[in-house]
């Protein structure tokens, strides 16, 4: 296996903090915010992240496959989540400390609840508006809820949520550079 060649393409309107771990071929779209202490590892294939995503502290995005891992627009990756999905659509919320395995592809408007572990044995595509949330049993020692419930969200309130997501990102783009050093891509 050839050594991973680092290549970062960061849009000039993206805010990627200096204290972020990047590995491999990574493209970050306009308006996307990457907090300090987040990590993006393109181990096997490249990772392409769309516009206006928010990647919070301690969040880890990993691509273990050869093909490109595509992350759409307006996704929120909360603190300490770990996502290895080969494709992610738009307007998804990956909640704090959740873990999504590489066998899961995420469509749009999905919510992975706090601490939820999504690890299907076979490859699966979560349809739009899928909500996964913690079950009635408490989490195991690993700090995740392996027993999860599923629902389909009606989508009511999505416009307001999208609006909030945009404002959230906008605020971060303004505030983060005041307190953190920002990384520039190879391209800019």
């Amino acid at each position, binding site marked *: 296996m050839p050594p991973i060649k680092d290549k970062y393409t960061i849009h000039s309107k993206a805010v990627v903090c200096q204290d972020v771990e990047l590995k491999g071929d990574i493209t970050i779209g306009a308006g996307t915010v990457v907090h300090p202490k987040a990590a993006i590892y393109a181990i096997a294939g490249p990772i392409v992240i769309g516009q206006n995503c928010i990647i919070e502290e301690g969040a880890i995005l990993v691509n273990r496959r050869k093909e490109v891992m595509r992350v759409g*627009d307006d996704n929120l990756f909360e603190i300490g989540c770990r996502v290895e999905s080969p494709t992610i659509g738009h307007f998804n919320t990956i909640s704090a400390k959740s873990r999504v395995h590489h066998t899961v592809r995420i469509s749009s408007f999905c919510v992975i*609840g706090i601490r939820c572990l999504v690890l299907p044995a076979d490859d699966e595509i979560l349809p739009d508006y899928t909500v996964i*949330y913690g079950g009635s049993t408490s989490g195991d020692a690993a700090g995740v809820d392996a027993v999860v*419930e599923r629902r389909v969200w*009606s989508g*009511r*309130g999505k416009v*307001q949520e999208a609006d909030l997501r945009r404002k959230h990102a906008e605020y971060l783009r303004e505030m983060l550079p005041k307190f953190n050093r920002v990384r520039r891509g190879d391209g800019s």
Partner: protein
Amino acid sequence: MAPSVNYHCPCLSSAATPPPPNLPSSSYSFHPLHTLYFCEECDAVRCNRCVSVEVSGYYCPNCLFEVPSASVRAEKNRCARNCFQCPHCRNTLSVVPSDPPDAGDLTSSTIQIGSIGEPPFFLYCNYCRWDSAEVGITFEKPTGLALQLQKTEDSAPDSLEFERLKEHFEPFLRASSLSASTSHLPSTSHAPHTHTNPITAAASSALARDIPGVGKYNPSLGRSGGPGGGGGRSGRDRTANKDEMPEYRSRVQIGGAGSGGDEDADLMRHLEVPAEIARLEQRWVSSWATSLQSKHLKPLRIPLHSKPTKRCPSCRHILIKPEQKAQSVKYKIKLVAANYLPAITAHLPHAQIPKRPVALKSSVTSSTGPPAAEEDTAEPTMVAGKTYPFQLALTNPLYDPIHVRLAVQRAPLPPQLQSQDTAGTTDKEKEKTRRPPFAVSLPTSAFPIAAFAEAWEYEDEEELFDEDGGLVDKSSPAKDRAGKGKTKTVGVLEKKANCTVVGGEVVIGREGRGDVKFNMLVSYTYRSDDPAPSDGGEGDVEPRSPTAPKAAPEMKTFSFFTVVDLGVIVPKDETKVE
């Protein structure tokens, strides 16, 4: 399980001494120290089984509104403001406006939303994304939602049926409360209770009250109306009343949705995904029987909580009383036993010896041994036929030093302690009937525990061993090999601040089985604040140690029982298997 020490509350029996620790009933008489109260008036320990509880206030756990008790019933014990629970995940719901009419293309960079929310409003769960529009509940205004919901709750068939039932029984209840005032049962007729007081008396007379149409309970005749023959005898004089009650006809049809009838059976038969059926925990928070289907679950008003006040059952003094404010977690009055009685913790030094033998033993035990040994591989085990030292650490909560004397009750005493006068003397005859599985030695003389003080107030610790009998080599007995304990392990081992550690020893018989669990009488002498202690009088309340030293008049002695559980005995033959 680590060794434990629980404290006795004598409320469950008239005897001053607690039940033998090997009886199942024993566990009901003993409690962890932190759950106990202490009545200064009665000079006695009180537990949650004997205190009388009254509600001092109701509040909503979500909005912390203090609900006047007058409205609690009308609002059916649930918050009447804007607090709702998600029927699926029990998260708190929030009221949100609808999206603007044209959702359009969200990925385009322009989303315009006015600052004022658009009706209709609905309840929305931020966690599982359920919303009340799914069950057709929306609101024109974001206020007064509880009132609107309660209206639908109250119009539920079950609710209406309940109201009708109440109306139906109303005249009978009124009549029975009148008759109760004329015919009080003598207090001797119901179960003898050591602490009869106005509240328990009222409660038990209410329970024993004559209800027209219902067979009378007569203690001398035994159960009436039961499956036995008692019903006929007592029913005879009640026939007149029975006829008075007209038959009640239900309006709700049995077998409708949610009541387990054909409709539900049919639903279950055609079930495709288990999640279609609401789980039991999702349904039973609801006030009335609801549909089985999870898609029919309705938002719930949040149930109120209450703050209780607890009183001493015999003198009615308040033992604990919270502050009225729902936001406050403080207490106005707090008489907890932990502030009066020395805290005692037990441990086995041999359990701290590296895991090797323990782990092996318990793995053998789990196959054939007593079930209690199964859960924890690190559990200290005691092998039959061996002798083990154990330690009791006593911590003094008082601002004055105390002198403590320990005595084993009823437990088999080794010969050298047989002469000692313990509280178990009266039971010595019983002991002879059974071969004891183990014998416990404890220090026989009283030992001091320093006063409680703030950490910085302690002087350099001096070893004050002069007051004790024949004690102790300073080398910790914890390093003694298990099973080879010497007599030196019994006595005061360590004094530090307001904590004194004493050592004891347990000799396990060759045929010993079960738990090493024994009752221990703890008597401590302290300087009393009030000069004239009313000793005696409450003989039923706490046993006074017969060995309590007659000290200076301002000294008082308080005695209480504890149960010390050191763990399970591993039968000897099983350890040979390895």
